[in-house]
C-alpha cells in the first residue's frame, strides 16, 4: 500500500501495464520527456524509451486515427488528449471510426485503445481546458466511458480499461489530480467496468454523481446530516443502473450531480431511467444539479458555473421537503 494522489495512481497503473504487456504504448503531445503537462506520464519515457512513449505531432485526430491503426493491428495504444476541450478535433476518429470498427466489420477488426483525457473545471485554466464532454461519448454507441473519483478507483479502472477489448475513454478529473491521497495497493488489481461504488449508505435519499463532483457531493451530504446514499457511477457507459435503481427504490428521492451542462447531460439519462424503473417508488421528482446551459466561463467565474456543495445541499433539502 502507498498513499497516492490520483496522478500517482494513474502513473503507477501505466507503469504496471507497460511492464506486463509490451503491446501497450503511449502516444500524445508532451507525454515523453516532459512527462505530460500534468506529469501523469512522468518517468515513463525514461523507463520505457521513445518507442513506447511517443511524443506525437500536435494533431488530435492524428493521434486517435493512428492509435486506431495501432489497435487494429493488435497493439494496446493509450493515446492522451491533453485537455477535454481538445477532444473536439478527434471527435470524428473517435465516433465514426473507433466506436464503429467492431460492428461494421462484424468483429473482424477491433480497436482496443484507451484514450486518456484530463476533464473538468476548477483549476483556473484557460478556455477549453475545463470542459465536461462525457455525455457526447456516452451517447455514442461502441465506446465505453470511465471517470474515476479517487486514486484507488483510478488505478483499478484504468487497468481494466487498458485490458478491455473495446475503445474506452478514460476521463481523469483534473481538479482532484492532487487534491487528496488514498491508500492504493502496489500490486495490480482491476475494478470491473460498469459497476458503481456506493460511497456511503443511507435511507433517506440517493445522490448520484461521478468524477470530481463526487467530492462536492460528499461535502454537501456531510453538511446535511441526513441519511443519504451516495452512488459514484465510476463507469458512465455501460452504467450501473441496477445500483441506482436499488437505491432509489429504497429512498424514493434522488439528486443527480454533474459538471456538464444540464440539457442532454448524462443526468437526463439517469433521471429518465429512474422514472422508467422506479416510477411507483418516487416520492419526489429527480433533481439535477448540473452545469448551466452556457459555455464554461473563464476562470474568474468558473466557480459560479460549477455545481458546488451549496447548490447540492440546497437541492438535497428541497428534495427532502417535497
Amino acid at each position, binding site marked *: 500500500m502507498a498513499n497516492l494522489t490520483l496522478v500517482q495512481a494513474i502513473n503507477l497503473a501505466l507503469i504496471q501495464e507497460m511492464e506486463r504487456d509490451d503491446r501497450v*504504448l503511449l502516444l500524445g503531445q508532451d507525454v515523453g520527456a516532459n512527462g505530460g503537462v500534468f506529469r501523469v506520464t512522468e518517468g515513463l519515457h525514461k523507463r520505457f524509451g521513445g*518507442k513506447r512513449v*511517443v511524443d*506525437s*505531432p500536435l*494533431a488530435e*485526430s*492524428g493521434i*486517435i*486515427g*493512428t*492509435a*486506431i*491503426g*495501432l*489497435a*487494429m*493491428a*493488435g*497493439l494496446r*495504444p493509450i493515446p492522451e488528449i491533453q485537455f477535454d476541450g481538445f477532444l473536439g*478535433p478527434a471527435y*470524428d*476518429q473517435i465516433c*465514426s*471510426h473507433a466506436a464503429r470498427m*467492431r*460492428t*461494421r*466489420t*462484424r*468483429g*473482424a*477488426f*477491433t480497436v482496443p485503445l484507451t484514450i486518456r483525457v484530463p476533464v473538468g473545471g476548477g483549476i483556473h485554466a484557460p478556455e477549453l481546458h475545463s470542459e465536461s464532454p462525457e455525455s457526447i461519448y456516452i451517447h455514442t*454507441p*461502441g465506446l*465505453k466511458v470511465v471517470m474515476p473519483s479517487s486514486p484507488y478507483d483510478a488505478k483499478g479502472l484504468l487497468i481494466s480499461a487498458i485490458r*478491455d*477489448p*473495446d475503445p474506452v475513454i478514460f476521463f481523469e478529473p483534473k481538479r482532484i489530480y492532487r487534491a487528496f491521497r488514498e491508500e492504493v495497493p502496489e500490486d495490480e488489481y482491476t475494478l470491473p467496468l*460498469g459497476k458503481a461504488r456506493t460511497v456511503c449508505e443511507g435511507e433517506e435519499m440517493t445522490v448520484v454523481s461521478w468524477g470530481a463532483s463526487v467530492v462536492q457531493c460528499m461535502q454537501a451530504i456531510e453538511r446535511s446530516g441526513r441519511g443519504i446514499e451516495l452512488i459514484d457511477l465510476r463507469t458512465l*457507459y*455501460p*452504467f450501473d*443502473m*441496477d445500483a441506482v435503481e436499488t437505491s432509489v427504490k429504497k429512498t424514493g428521492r434522488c439528486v443527480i450531480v454533474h459538471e456538464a451542462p444540464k440539457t442532454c447531460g448524462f443526468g437526463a439519462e439517469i433521471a429518465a*431511467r429512474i*422514472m*422508467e*424503473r422506479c*416510477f411507483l417508488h418516487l416520492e419526489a421528482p429527480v433533481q439535477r444539479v448540473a452545469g448551466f446551459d452556457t459555455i464554461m466561463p473563464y476562470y474568474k467565474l468558473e466557480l459560479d458555473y460549477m455545481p458546488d456543495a451549496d447548490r447540492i445541499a440546497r437541492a438535497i433539502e428541497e428534495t427532502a421537503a417535497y
Partner: protein
Amino acid sequence: MPIKTVLTAEIENVSILDAEGRFDEKLGKGLIPDADLVKLYGHMCTCRHLDEVAFKLQRSGRMGTYPQNMGQEAASLGAAYALNNDDWLVTCYRENCGLFWRGVPMESILLHWMGDERGNAMPRQHHATPIAVPIGTQMLHATGLAWAAKYRGEKRIACTFFGDGATSEGDFHEAMNFAANLDIPVVFCCQNNGWAISVPGHIQCSAPTVAQRALAYGMDTIQCDGNDLFAVVHCFRKAIKQARSTGRPFFIEAVTYRLGDHTTADDARRYRDQAEVDAWRARDPILRLRKYMAKRGLWSDAKEQELQAKVEVEVAATVERAEGITSPNRVDFFDHMYAEIPADLALQRDTMQTHGIGQDPSQIEGAVIELPAKEGH
C-alpha cells in the same frame, strides 16, 4: 547572402505504356513478366465486368448505391501486384481491382454495397481493411497499421489509397505528417481522377500536381500515368522498396479518370462535358493493355472471347453468392457492438424495445396488449 535558397524540389512524372501505345523499353522491359501480364489483364477485365453488373444490380433494385471503378483499375492493381501479400492495403472504394488481386472475395464488395456488414468482415490473412466510406479518414489507420509493424520489428508496410477530393481533408494532412515525422513506412497513393463528385480537381488542389502535396512533409513523391499499369508498377516498386528499406513514407499521384458517374446516385452529365469523358475513354487502361499484348502476340480475339466468357461465369457466380446469403440476423447489429454485450443493450436486443414498459411488461401487471391493426393491411 541576404537571400539564399534553402530548398529546391522537383517532381517527376512516369509514363511507360502511353495511350498511343508507345512503350518505353528502358523502363518497361522485364518490369512485368508476360505470364503475369496476361493474368493482370484478365483480372482487370473481371473487375470491369463486375462493375457493369453491379451497376445493373443497382438499377434493378437489387443493390444500393454503388460507385463504379471503371477506368481506374490499373492503379490499385499495380499496387497490389507490387506489394507483398501481407503488406496492409487500406483503400477507399475505387480499388476493387487491387483488393480482388489480394484475394478479397468479390462478393465481399457486393455485400458491402448491398447494405450488409458481413461484406466488411475481411479475413485477417488478406491484410486488407474494408471499404472506407467517410472520405479521407482511412489514411490515418494505414499509418497506425504500418506503425504497429514497425513497433513489432516486422518488415510489413502499409499502402493506402484515396481520391483527389480526400487530399482536402485535414486527416490526409495529419496522416502524411505523422508518417513523415515519425518515420512510418506508408505508401500513400492518390487516385487523382479529376473529380470529387461534381467538384473539379482544381477546387481540391489548384497546384500543378497533387504529387507536390508531399513536399510539405519532405516526403518523396512521384506522379505517374495511373492508367498505365507499367508506370504504376514501376512507381510502386520504387516506393515500396524505399519504404521497406528506410522506413520512410512515399507519395504517388496516379493520374486517372472516373469514366462513370460518381456513384449510381449521381448523374455526371449535370456537371461535366461528354468530350472530356470521350477523351479519357481513349486512355482506358484495359484497352491500352490489350493493344499492347496483341502487338506483342500475347493476345488474340479468340483469347479475348474465351476470357470474357470465363469472366461472365465468374461474376455471375459471385452475384449468386452475394444474393444467396441468408438474411442477416437482426441481432447482429447488437451482438458486435462490444466483445461482451452490456446488460442494458442485451435487454434492448432481447425485447427489441427501448421503452421501459416494453422492456419490462411486468410493470403493467399482465395487461394484455393488442396492437391495433395496421392501416390498409
